[in-house]
């Protein structure tokens, strides 16, 4: 079966105005299958977000190409939904209008927009907050809205760039469970960037470990924990075993990054 997303020899170098060249990403080859939940784990500043942004079409690779469903990615588009670490809801739109944004952009009829928005509002547990403005909601609720907004657009793949990174720990754990629950129900293909090991294992069926900058994929690890997963799985021996291995991998990279 040909992969849904294929990253082929993608590298990225940045040139500063003074002419200084930084290699952010060494050539990366990576495939994501349909219905995969892949997490990209790596120390901060390792280029994992750069890779995700290239997949989203928000950044251009210096070499290589990205194929989605066999077609090369030229720029950003609605077939790749994205949830950012920063709160990117449109502050002038209500929660419902935010979720309908992409649907309105493609000219979907009002009634259909409403129906889809209602479905995803319920899905992320925001019923009763439809008419609120983003600033009236907590960080966790804003990110839930952002997830609903991306999902409502029915993208082929959902790209998530440390979406829970700015949340407190308790909220983050709840958000992981919510997202995993949605994935278990819808099997939407997800590519999720994080530096949190627990987060990487808990939701994924595959973890790709990034090296320190310049980034490349160092190891790939299958996570064969059964679904549906409950938070108690985090204390199971299998989970602990995976965590120990990934901790070792990440530790080496963090130390390498620190030495720079």
């Amino acid at each position, binding site marked *: 079966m040909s992969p849904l997303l294929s990253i082929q020899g993608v590298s990225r170098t940045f040139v500063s105005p003074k002419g200084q060249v930084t290699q952010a990403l060494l050539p990366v080859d990576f495939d994501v299958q349909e219905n995969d939940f892949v997490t990209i784990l790596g120390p901060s500043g390792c280029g994992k977000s750069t890779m995700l942004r290239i997949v989203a*079409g928000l950044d251009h690779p210096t070499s290589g190409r990205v194929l989605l469903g066999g077609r090369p990615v030229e*720029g*950003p588009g609605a077939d790749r939904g994205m949830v950012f670490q920063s709160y*990117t809801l*449109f*502050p*002038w739109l209500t929660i419902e209008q935010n979720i309908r944004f992409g649907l*309105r*952009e*493609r000219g979907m009829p009002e009634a259909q927009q409403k129906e889809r928005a209602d479905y995803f509002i319920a899905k992320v547990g925001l019923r009763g907050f439809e008419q609120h403005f983003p600033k009236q909601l907590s960080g966790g609720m804003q990110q839930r809205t952002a997830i609903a907004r991306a999902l409502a657009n029915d993208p082929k793949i959902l790209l998530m760039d440390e979406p829970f990174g700015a949340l407190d720990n308790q909220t983050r754990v709840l958000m992981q469970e919510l997202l995993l629950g949605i994935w278990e129900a819808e099997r939407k293909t997800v590519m999720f960037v994080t530096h949190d090991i627990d987060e990487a294992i808990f939701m994924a069926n595959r973890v790709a470990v990034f090296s320190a900058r310049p980034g490349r994929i160092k190891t790939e690890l299958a996570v064969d924990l059964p679904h549906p997963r409950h938070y108690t799985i985090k204390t199971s021996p299998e989970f602990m075993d995976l965590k120990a291995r990934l901790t070792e991998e990440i530790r080496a990279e963090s130390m390498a990054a620190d030495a720079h």
Partner: protein
Amino acid sequence: MSRVMGVAPALEPERPRRRALAPLEPVSTRTRLVLGVAFFILFFAVWSVFTLGGFVSPTFLASPVTMAKEGWLLFTEFGFLHDIGMTVWRVLGGFILAAIVAVPLGIAMGAHKGVEAFLEPFVSFCRYLPASAFIPLLILWAGLGEMQKLLVIFIGSVFQIILMVAVIVGNARKDLVEAAYTLGSSPTGIVRRVLIPGAAPDIAETLRLVLGWAWTYVIVAELIGSSSGIGHMITDSQALLNTGQIIFGIIVIGLIGLVSDSFFKFVNRRLFAWSALR
């Protein structure tokens, strides 16, 4: 023992601070109102002492009482309402014309760097051309009619609005633009449904500011070659050494400015409730 060990000297119990004097400490709405009115009273009191007490010649400065009497006369005898109407009409006319031209241009400059590179140097240059210096030229071109007055206001406002709007739109949040792209927005969609709504509250605030400046231009325009308006009345009164009327005219301008500013603020708050949220 304790002397050897050394005991930290006991702190005196902290006195309650005088919060009214603490920096950035907010005051209640009532206090704010009382203080605001108090200054006006103080101002009029000092004015009265100097004029009614005979420290200043009435030729140079009328007393508040004379001013009020002259003001009454202006309305009842000299058709001052017509003058006020003319001035307001000129300000609004010139300002609205300027806004219609400047806001779209500013948005285009803020959104498209090519347009900005093309227009920004010229507009920045024009911004420093004093509107009042154009009056003789505008009289040559447009005569002494209404067109000339409108043009003075227009020239005084249009370049300011263009530049300020361009900066506001250019400072749009990059992450919101990216989010919109990943939701399928086209470049036109980005301008119309991200840049413009995001900049709207600040654009409205800019218009409020520039409307205040437009008021100063209109008076200057009316001081020269005019047969109506508040500025015209002030020049006439100067010829008659009627300082009471001059001061009354100035106060009326201030009052109209205050009212229109409050109205603008009120409308902005209503239209852009989201931007006041924290």
